């Protein structure tokens, strides 16, 4: 990247960039709707026979009880 490209503002807004300023990146792939799994309640899922999923759901339930303690975010650390 050369330094003349560095016209980006810190808030991520686009800045005019001459020749390819009008270009934008169009998503490709399968952009059809996802199934709406949000309809599934945690209680309903408790009957699902999948031990791994049950362990994940137990953590999610615990997290839902204490939302202010959700602290597992930054990608570059645990």
């Amino acid at each position, binding site marked *: *990247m050369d*330094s003349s*490209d*560095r*016209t*980006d503002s*810190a*808030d*991520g*807004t*686009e*800045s005019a*960039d001459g020749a*390819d*300023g009008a*270009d*934008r*990146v*169009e*998503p*490709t*792939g*399968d*952009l*059809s*709707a*996802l*199934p*709406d*799994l*949000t*309809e*599934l309640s*945690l209680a*309903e*899922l408790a*009957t*699902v*026979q*999948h*031990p*791994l*999923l049950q362990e*994940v759901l137990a*953590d*999610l339930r615990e*997290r*839902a009880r204490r*939302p*202010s*303690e*959700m*602290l*597992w*975010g*930054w*990608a*570059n*650390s*645990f």
Partner: protein
Amino acid sequence: MAEQHAPFRQFIVKVHGRCNLACRYCYLYEGPDDTWRGRPAAAPPEVLDRTASRIAEHARAHGLTALSLILHGGEPLLAGAETLGRFTALVRDRAPAGCTVRAVVQTNATLLTEPRLAILARHRIGVGISLDGGLPAHNARRVDHAGRPSWPAAARGARLVADRFPESYAGILAVVDVTQDPVQTYESLLALRPPALDLLLPHGNWSEPPPHWDGTGTVYGGWLCTVFDRWWKAGRRETRVRLFEECIALLLGLPAITEALGLQPFDAVVVETDGAIEQVDSLKSAYEGAARTGLDVFRHGFDEALRHPGVRARQAGATALAEQCRACPLVSVCGGGHYVHRYRAGHGFRNPSVYCADLQRFIRHVATRLGATASATTATSAMATAVAAVVPSSPEGGIP
């Protein structure tokens, strides 16, 4: 209208700015930003002291009941385990009553010894390890400054934590290397017995695409789907995998805690070794100085950083996204992907992720597996019909 800022709750403190390794892909030292050169190697005591006070001040001002202290670098253990312990104790002492400080050191594991781990354990500092797999070949790019492999020392360190200090073991972060077999990579990491794992997509953007990326979603998306299936079909949770579990949470409409997916406001801030307050330094993979805020712990509180336009952009949820992402049916799960992967020189960060096709493929795959598993046992669920109607069967087939 008064602006709402989510307070910072993750404080990444660069206790040491240099590394004893020189990983070939490192965004910090091999990337376009070399601001580290002008800073002190180790954070001096006055920087750590001031940082502890600023963190406590922020926690008090925002009534935080928990915060995360991430001891980072460079290689943070170069600062000495005692220094890490003292600093953590200082933050805990000054944090308001009722605020839990969860501390973790993120290390390349090469400097882990029993005495150092004992000090970290005494101070209740968790140990997160950065590795690219559990075999020497997986870590070929993780070399020291003389080009020698770091794997023998890193493996020794990781095993020491697993054997002797399992309660300190926070997990392993691995950068995806698509030239390696996905299942072998996962299983070799599993052999190091991490309680949690995260698979990070390599830094890259539209102007500097990731290695081997082809834009079809096959290379990275396919790799992740293969590991997901190995994890999902194990019959039990062999380890937590952050990317997978957060994807499941988001698909179920629950809040997630990852930077890689979702629309949750991002609440991490960095303090450099000279006390500069910066945005997370993965931004440095985009362009030189991208993480700068012009603030420092001596003259500014973290509230001032909350008002910085770059920080605000990362807290703005869907409104900060590209139009293409806002119109995307996957947006509530994908969230446009990791912020730095959206960068395009001359166009800023308001683009879909360079991993757009990979994320679509991965998210759709997880949705398929989750939906099929749920519908198999909740036969009456209307959702089962919805899944069958909307999601084509997985290219890999064989839904459990």
